[in-house]
């Protein structure tokens, strides 16, 4: 482990989980964690102490649902998948993120602002 790796910023983990499930389809907790780490180019570490409560919260909010299934290599695992509300939520949050990003970008690049 190198110092460059950081924990997932709070509040963004939920969106990453939702986006992962949207891209890949139904997936178990371990798979979600690995996928997020890979997508980040191994710059993020997903802590399971944060992941499980986050998954539970998303379930309680009704964005994802879970069921037990058998994995590719014949292991029983709990699979999570997006619900209809979850799909909408991804769109909404992605939109919000893009907007926030755009605004922040203008702040963080003051040279462009004057043009």
């Amino acid at each position: 482990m190198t110092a460059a790796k950081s924990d997932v910023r709070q509040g963004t983990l939920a969106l990453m989980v939702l986006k992962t499930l949207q891209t890949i389809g139904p997936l178990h907790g371990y798979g979600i964690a690995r996928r997020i780490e890979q997508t980040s180019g191994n710059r993020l570490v997903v802590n399971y102490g944060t992941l499980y409560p986050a998954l539970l919260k998303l379930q309680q909010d009704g964005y994802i649902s879970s069921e037990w299934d058998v994995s590719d290599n014949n292991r029983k695992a709990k699979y999570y998948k997006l619900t209809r509300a979850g799909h909408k939520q991804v769109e909404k949050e992605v939109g919000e993120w893009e907007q926030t990003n755009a605004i922040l970008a203008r702040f963080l690049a003051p040279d462009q602002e004057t043009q």
Partner: protein
Amino acid sequence: MRTLRAWFLRAAGLFHKERRDRELADEIESNLRMHIDDNVRAGMTPAEAQRQAMLKFGSVESAKESYRDQRGIPLLESLWQDVRFGLRMLRKSASFTALAILTLALGVGANATVFSWVRTLLLNPLPGVVAANHVVALETLAPDGSWEPTSYLDFRDLRDNCKSVQAMSVTKPMALAVGDTESVERVWGEAVSGNFFEMLGVKPALGRFFSTAEVDQQQNARPLVILSHAYWLSHYHADPGVIGASVRINHFPYTIIGVTPEEFHGSMPGLSFDAWVPATMYGQLASTGDNTLLDRKWRTFRVLARLAPGVSLGEARAEVVSHAKDMARDDANTNEGMSATLLPMWESHYGIQGSMLGPLGILMAACALVLLIVCANLANLQLARATARQKEFVLRLSLGASRSRLIRQVLTECSLVAVAGSLGGIAIASWLKGTLAWFLPRSSVPALGHVPLDIGVLFFAITLAFAVALVSGLAASLRVVGRNTDEMLKTGGRASSSAHSSRLRGLLATSEMALAVVAMIAAGLLLESFRNVSKIRPGFDAQQVVVAQLDLSAASYDAQQANAFYQRLQQELERQPGVTAVSYADYVPLSLSGGSWEKLEIRGYVPTPSEDMDIYRSLISPGYFNLMKIPIFEGRDFRSSDDMNAPPVMIVNQEFVRRFIGTGTAVGRQVHGWGSWFTIIGVAADSKVFRLNESPAPYFYVPMRQIYRPEMGLAFFVHTSASNDSALSTLQREARAAAPTIPVFDVMSLSDEISVSLFTQRISAGLVSVLAGVALSLAALGLFGVMTYSVAQRTNEIGIRIALGAQRKHVFAMVLGQGTRVALLGITIGTLAAWAVTRLMIGALYGVKPGDPGTFCAVSLLLLAIALLACYVPARRAMRVDPMVALKYE
């Protein structure tokens, strides 16, 4: 919506914990396996694969912990833990718990009871009335500033002219004889204006109410009656067909048009009425004729007003005063010098709230004292407990419990005590609230015996219990929890705080003692005045005399018929066995019913301009003085020949002679009243008329056969050689037999009537004594607790002393001395406080000064004795300490 759903799921997460825990464990297990599989596939050895996977996974237990927090509602779960733990702890120290709950229940119960009385009589005096705080009383003021009822014409002028008053109505409380010739019952009713119910905002439960246009126009034209809910229930079994039915009132047929809602009792605080008739029917019902409503001097009505929106009482009063001034000028022949004022209901002179104001004030003060003692006692108990639990707290703190968590634990335990205490208090209050009826005068007017224990009172009780329990508990445990953990661990959580906290506990016990002294001295002074008042001789002999009152207004007799009736009944009664004398009068002395007066002019006496020449009087029959054993000093008693055809005569009392006649002979002097000149024929001894503790006032008697007033009262007095009880039944039977249509009421012995007149003193002395007793026992309990605890703490020290040769009696004296010091300090402070406070009670005292040395000494000695008693048991325990056991204990 989504949040609600999430909370619902979290709440559901509180259940089936095992199944959910197992599922989480399975999921973690399966994910871990997949991780290991991946590692092996990447080329690690199985052992290395497992090690790396575990490393990456982090603490499984901590993951589970945060998962559980998200699953349920942590605050709720730890609250539940606290409650269970608290219940266990409370059960473990059962004596503490029982004491705390009992103390709290006593304090809360006493306060809730008095609060419910205050609420019924003062705060919410008119239940069922909309925005009752805007309803005020209008009272006429005589030139000397005393209040009077209002005449109908004055009322009409004020009603039509006052802009700051939205509506104004008269009400005249009156006893009505309701029923047919078979059985007539006395029912209390009010004669009211057409807008009475509308002004009060009361809606009929059944039928309709009067309309202004209908009943305020002509006199005696609308024989309509509205019944109370209670009367409708008891006499008509809640039959809705009662509307339109006819009922006889004072022998006139009336039509029932409505029923009031259940909570409405009429317009006089603390009293309940059962019937309402139009004020324009008053002349007919009271047999006073049409003139009653047309004569400005006939001041007989009570007036209520509702303030217009946004108008203050002061503004409205100013307008009323200015109109009254105009009226005093315009109608100078009747109203010269008169004025009027507006008063809030609780200050109004009608109803029982006036006479209850003093006793209730004293009661509330006594209750507040008890509550303070309860607080001190509870704080003491909590402090003892917190000190005892210091070890537990220190252990928990050092094991990582947060201070806020410990405080939450203490709060939970206090709340448990508060819940139990308030439940106990409510039970006590609901049992006590009915006792108000015992203290109300047993007069002929129906007092509102039913005191509702409503939401307000319950809320009050519960808030009180929680406030007391939480404040005392928190204050106590903060002292313990707030300390430095390290230091406490070193001392084993024992000795470090004991000196400090036992000083605080001594202080609490001292203040309890002081408060108890104040309560006891107040009770002692009130008891002493009650004794003094009961010892006053009324000036007549009430032994072996029974009285019955009759309501003649129902019979509509003229003077002749009335006289015939008196004589017939008197002869019937005289024939009965055991009856030794019979007499009658229009007033029973000391009966609280309020007397009548006449404006007199005495030949040869010139009153000062402001002198009140309205002198109270009685109309009596011959033989009255003999029966009552009131001596006649000069002249003679009335004879049966002193009737309508004979010259008018009167007998005056000694005070009358002292004030108006001086040293000359009174007999033969001329006095003017009722439009004619009376000759004084005798002087009777002074006797008490209204209250036992009144000072002598001029009074006079006239033969009932010479003065007849259709509205006057009639009471028959029977002196008996047999028992009072048999005389009472004889009197009741004969009075009914003589005229079945005349209601007979208030049949009781004259000594009972007198004890009724003592009710103000009785209620104050009785209740305050009970409360002082409670205060005393709580203070004794507090001192006992402190001493017991102090001995337990010092067991070690005492053991060493004894081992070193201290004599056991010295140990005993030492403990006793310590307790006595606390008690003496408390008694001294309490005595000084009482010295200052009892001055406020001067109005409630009779024949005893606020600083009465006897009472102060007696109470101090009593308290000292009780304090010694409270210290005796702990001192004995200290004396018996076995040095070996005490030393081993460490």
